[in-house]
């Protein structure tokens, strides 16, 4: 079956080559049948890659260890769900996932635009097939997912313990969907520039895909943050890791684009800016993939090898140089059709918002790629850490949150000062009241956090005001009850009110970030059973040790051969709050030199964090038991000397018993973080708001609205 999978890759490469030539010939020679054939090549690419993906997926599900990727990332003891997701745990499998998702979303985009912008779509088809061909070529020449070894090893290495977490199953597909969806606006942008059709039509066509890319990227980023918080054992959700930053940068430029494209749609302005943002977002998405897959930067995500660096750098260079050439050579036709009517307008706020988002992206870009640049220039590797990023991103984030509250209360085109004063009154009072309450509560020593809470209050008040006034207006026109009027208001103005809900979600998310990082209490201490320590207002007591062996008792399917941990009791003011069970999992290694028993637990240990989550705070705990304690080490040494590989698991029983009977002191890490849960809740609100904003109105409603508007137009003009 590996042969079938590899043959599919070869067919895919051929399809890409044909499709590129057919699309370009079709548009240049005015032969629409070749353009249509090129578009169908994308559908064929999706079909062929689906077969290839199915072959690999079946190999994982059937434990076919002749496949190298299966042997390297799965095992018979890996639970079924994780085995299915292990397809994208490897370099090769993740490249196949990327190519497959690209072909899927490209097929959807080209199908939906098949009757419009035929010239633009033809060039876009060629670009998308170019990307597809690039990734397929990487698989054929550098990282073949269908490489085999015969005879097959009897057992696989198993899935990396760090990836045995539910959110990690869905995180790569979401992230890669985001990356691939971001290449679609890039492709159509290139097409629009090549076809010299930079009008409203192409913007309208790609808006939904830009939004979908933004949604998926955001979901992928948040899932990764959740994994980091719940699995990685350091207690944080964002570490300004290179790969985290790589996904955030295109999300920021996509956010800027989604705002400024509204200005182009309405006023025919910012054409250069929008097309540049679209090209930048797509390029940053490719650069993000490069960072994850090439291993060029040190990162917890460095699952990729170093062999893919050169092809990626070539592709990125082509994208950057090509983008600059296209924009500068078409700058005449990208002139704005109108000018800004007033500085006091929503257009102005969006412009400032765009500048802040791009500035954020630039700061993160510099901090992320600085090690590479530094090494290239001076020969010495260096890096910038979280304090550097926080210094520049926090003030910009504050401005961003504030702008997300200002935008909703300012009119398009022009607002009068009197109206602006009236509309800003309630949000300003809300912000000031929040400041007074917080300062009165004695949190003035964290000015940035206080400032952010005030900005968030401003956002809630301004959006709440918008919903209230809109509902009131709707009731005045249609005489509906409040709930019906509210629903109708949102349904008829999905973009606007969906966007407002997104703004609320962002404010909620930042409240969680500010509170959890500014008011966190953390303690690291060594304890024996019976001992306790303080973490903020909480007391945590080490009640008793815990141990589990073999997959039979591994309820969380962590795959550990041995897990040593503790039961911890959390109290506040003498009242029981929670019981936590953090543990450290020990995994088998492949190194025979560690001995028969040593190799059963000699793999990299993984912390299994225990969290008591709540609306007001999370209590987070991790443990690092002393596995090298003399009593435990003696058992391992004796077992290595006297037990063969078949009997070696008996030693695990002795290890567990010894640990339970005479537990050595363990290193504990406790964190109490206020309002962490609101980060995830805020993300969910953003997602819901985004879905509302992008959801299409039913075609019957659209036709009715268009017809009604058309009928009303002549009457209104006559009356005027």
């Amino acid at each position: 079956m590996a042969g079938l999978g590899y043959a599919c890759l070869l067919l895919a490469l051929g399809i890409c080559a044909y499709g590129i030539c057919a699309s370009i010939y079709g548009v240049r020679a005015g032969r629409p049948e070749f353009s249509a054939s090129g578009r169908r090549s994308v559908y064929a690419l999706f079909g062929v890659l689906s077969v290839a993906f199915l072959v690999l997926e079946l190999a994982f599900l059937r434990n076919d260890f002749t496949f190298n990727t299966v042997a390297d990332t799965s095992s018979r003891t890996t639970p079924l769900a994780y085995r299915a997701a292990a397809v994208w745990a490897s370099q090769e499998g993740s490249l196949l996932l990327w190519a497959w998702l690209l072909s899927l979303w490209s097929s959807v985009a080209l199908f939906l635009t098949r009757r419009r912008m035929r010239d633009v779509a033809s060039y876009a088809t060629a670009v998308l097939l170019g990307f597809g061909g690039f990734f397929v070529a990487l698989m054929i020449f550098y990282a073949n997912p269908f490489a085999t070894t015969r005879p097959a090893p009897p057992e696989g290495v198993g899935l990396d313990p760090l990836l045995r977490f539910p959110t990690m199953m869905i995180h790569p597909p979401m992230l890669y969907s985001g990356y691939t969806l971001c290449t679609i606006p890039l492709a159509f942008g290139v097409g629009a520039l090549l076809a010299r059709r930079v009008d409203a039509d192409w913007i309208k066509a790609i808006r939904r895909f830009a939004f979908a890319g933004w949604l998926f990227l955001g979901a992928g980023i948040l899932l990764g943050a959740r994994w980091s918080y719940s699995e990685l054992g350091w207690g944080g959700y964002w570490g300004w890791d290179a790969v985290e930053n790589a996904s955030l940068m295109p999300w920021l430029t996509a956010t800027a684009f989604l705002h400024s494209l509204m200005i182009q749609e309405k006023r025919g302005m910012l054409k250069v800016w929008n097309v540049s943002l679209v090209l930048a977002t797509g390029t940053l998405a490719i650069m993000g993939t490069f960072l994850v897959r090439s291993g060029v930067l040190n990162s917890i995500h460095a699952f990729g090898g170093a062999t893919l660096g050169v092809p990626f750098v070539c592709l990125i260079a082509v994208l950057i140089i090509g983008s600059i050439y296209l924009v500068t050579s078409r700058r005449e036709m990208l002139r704005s059709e109108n000018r800004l009517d007033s500085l006091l307008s929503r257009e102005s706020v969006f412009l400032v918002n765009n500048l802040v988002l791009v500035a954020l992206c630039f700061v993160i870009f510099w901090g992320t790629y600085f090690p590479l640049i530094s090494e290239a220039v001076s020969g010495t590797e260096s890096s910038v850490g979280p304090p550097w990023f926080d210094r520049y991103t926090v003030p910009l984030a504050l401005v961003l949150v504030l702008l997300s509250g200002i935008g909703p209360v300012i009119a398009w085109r022009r607002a009068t000062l009197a109206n602006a004063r009236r509309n800003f009154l309630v949000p300003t009072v809300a912000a000031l009241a929040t400041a007074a309450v917080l300062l009165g509560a004695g949190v003035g020593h964290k000015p940035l956090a206080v400032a952010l809470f005030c900005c968030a209050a401003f956002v809630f008040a301004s959006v709440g005001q918008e919903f209230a006034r809109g509902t009131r207006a709707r009731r005045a026109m249609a005489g509906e009850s409040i709930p019906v009027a509210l629903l109708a208001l949102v349904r008829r103005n999905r973009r606007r009110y969906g966007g407002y809900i997104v703004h609320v979600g962002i404010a909620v998310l930042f409240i969680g970030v500010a509170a959890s990082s500014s008011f966190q209490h953390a303690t690291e201490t060594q304890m024996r059973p019976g001992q306790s320590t303080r973490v903020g207002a909480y007391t945590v007591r080490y009640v008793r040790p815990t141990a589990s062996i073999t997959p039979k008792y591994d309820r969380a399917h962590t795959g550990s051969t041995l897990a040593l941990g503790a039961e911890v009791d959390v109290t506040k003011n003498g009242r029981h709050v929670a019981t936590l069970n953090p543990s450290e999992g020990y995994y088998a290694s492949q190194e025979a030199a560690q001995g028969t028993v040593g190799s059963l637990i000699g793999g990299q240990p993984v912390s299994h964090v225990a969290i008591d989550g709540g609306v007001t705070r999370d209590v987070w705990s991790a443990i690092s038991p002393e596995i090298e304690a003399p009593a435990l080490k003696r058992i391992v040494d004796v077992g290595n000397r006297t037990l063969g590989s078949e009997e070696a698991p008996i030693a695990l029983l002795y290890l567990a018993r010894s640990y339970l009977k005479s537990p050595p002191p363990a290193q504990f890490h406790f964190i109490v973080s206020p309002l962490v849960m609101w980060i995830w809740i805020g993300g969910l609100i953003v997602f819901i708001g985004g879905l509302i904003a992008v959801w299409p109105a039913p075609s019957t409603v659209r036709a009715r609205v268009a017809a009604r508007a058309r009928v009303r137009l002549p009457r209104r003009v006559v009356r005027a």
Partner: protein
Amino acid sequence: MAIVIVLSIVVLLVLIVLLVGAPLRQAAARRAGAVEGDTDNLAAGDRARDELEAAREAKYREIRDAELDFRTGKLSERDYRELDAELRAEALVILDELDAGVRPRGASGARSRSRRTGPRRRPSSD
């Protein structure tokens, strides 16, 4: 197993050729009856109509947004009336061009009448 794989590849290849080649076959069958230049004019007409329809929908959205801004207190009545009249006049220009039928023209032709280069004024009606 090898035979199954080979057969599968052959089937895939046939399906690909059928899918991808369908437009070429259809075009070859139609070619005898097509008048030269028809496709060019049709394509140019499609493009112009697509642009105008996109501009029309954007203009309708602007009109609705302006009304909502007024009803939610972001615009004074005087500003709203003035803006609404401007937007509706611009919309009428686009609708007139759509009603006039598809004429091959450049990409910027549809919007040039609403181009704002100086003080605000109603677009000309010719």
